[in-house]
C-alpha cells in the first residue's frame, strides 16, 4: 500500500512538473537571414550555460536547422527565469543558389546549401506555428526594416498572440539606425544591442525576464 501511495505521489509530482507554470518557455529567435540570430543565441547560451548553440557566419543561411538549447536559466534581480532558446534559420520567400557562388563556393555546395536552406525556412515556419511560446525578432539595425518578410512574420507572430520583443542588433555598426527599427514596429518594444560585441546585454536580459519569465 505504501509502495502504491509512493508511486502515486511521484507520478503526481512528475505531472505537476510537466504542467506547472514554471515550465521553461520555448523562445524562438526569428528574423531574416544575416540578422545575427545565431550570434545572439550563442551569446545568451554562453553567458548562462557556458556552451554555444551553433556556428556563426557572414554567409546567409549558415543556420539551416532549428537548434534548441534547453534550460537556459537567466538570473535577474534575485529571481531566475528558465527558457529554452530555439535558434531558427533566417526566413525568406526566395533562395537562389547563385547568390552563394559569390562566397567562393563550388556550385555543388551552393546547390546543396540552397536545398538545405529552403528546408530550414520551412522548418522555421513550422516551429512558429506549432512549437514556440514567445519570439525574439532580430533585425540588423543597419538594414531597412520595412521589408515584406518582416511585415509578414511580425503579422504571423501577432496573429498567434505570442509575446514578442524586437531586437535591433548590430548597433556597433556605423550605419545602425535603431529609431528606424522602432518606427517600423511601434506596437512592440524595441531593444538595441550588439550580440557580437555584447553591448546592452543587461537590458536584453531584463527584457527577456520581463516578457518571457
Amino acid at each position, binding site marked *: 500500500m505504501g509502495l502504491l501511495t509512493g508511486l502515486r505521489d511521484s507520478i503526481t509530482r512528475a505531472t505537476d512538473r510537466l504542467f506547472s507554470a514554471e515550465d521553461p518557455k520555448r523562445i524562438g529567435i526569428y528574423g531574416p537571414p544575416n540578422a545575427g540570430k545565431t550570434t545572439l543565441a550563442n551569446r545568451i547560451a554562453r553567458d548562462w550555460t557556458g556552451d554555444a548553440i551553433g556556428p556563426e557566419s557572414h554567409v546567409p543561411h549558415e543556420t539551416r536547422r532549428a537548434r534548441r538549447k534547453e534550460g537556459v536559466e537567466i538570473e535577474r534581480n534575485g529571481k531566475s527565469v528558465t527558457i529554452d532558446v530555439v535558434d531558427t534559420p533566417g526566413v525568406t520567400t*526566395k533562395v537562389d543558389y547563385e547568390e552563394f557562388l559569390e562566397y567562393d563556393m563550388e556550385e555543388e555546395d551552393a546547390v546543396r546549401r540552397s536545398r538545405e536552406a*529552403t528546408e530550414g*525556412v520551412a522548418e522555421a*515556419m*513550422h516551429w512558429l506555428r506549432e512549437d514556440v511560446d514567445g519570439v525574439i525578432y532580430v533585425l540588423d539595425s543597419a538594414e531597412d526594416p520595412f521589408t515584406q518578410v518582416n*511585415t509578414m512574420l511580425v*503579422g*504571423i507572430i501577432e*496573429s498567434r498572440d505570442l509575446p514578442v520583443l524586437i531586437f535591433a542588433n548590430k548597433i556597433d555598426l556605423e550605419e545602425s539606425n535603431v529609431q528606424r527599427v522602432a518606427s517600423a514596429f511601434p506596437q512592440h518594444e524595441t531593444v538595441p544591442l550588439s550580440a557580437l560585441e555584447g553591448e546592452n546585454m543587461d537590458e536584453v536580459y531584463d527584457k527577456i525576464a520581463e516578457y518571457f519569465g
Partner: protein
Amino acid sequence: MSEMPEATAPTDDAGGVQIDLISGERMEGLASMEKIRIILDGVHDGNIVILEEGLTPEEESRLIEVTMTEIDPDGFNGIEIETYPKSDAQDTSLLGRIMGQEDTAKLTVIGPANQIETLHKDETLISALVSRK
C-alpha cells in the same frame, strides 16, 4: 473547389507577362491550400498574381512553407510578395480578432522572384518592375 477557368494565355513566344487579378469573392470559401495552390500554380507559370483581399497571417505562413518546398535550383527560386505595410489605424484589437473581425483585406501582389522587383513601397503605394522570363 470552384473551377478556375483556363485563362486564354498567350503562347510563350508572345513574350508578354500574364497578370491574374483575383477577386476576394473568388477566394472566399476556398481552403487555405486551395488558395496557395492557385497562387503558386500561377507563379510557376511566370504570372503575376494580384489578390484583392490578400491572405490571413496563417495562410501567409503556409505560403512561405510551401514555396520553400517547391524551390528548385534548376528553375523556380521562390516568390516576391508585397502588401501595403500595416498602419497603426488598421491594428485590430485582440477582442476584434476573437470576434472574428480580423481585417486581413489588403491588396497583395505575388510573382516569381526572378521576374518581379519592388521599386518602392509605402502604406499607400506599391511600385514594382516586372520583367519577362
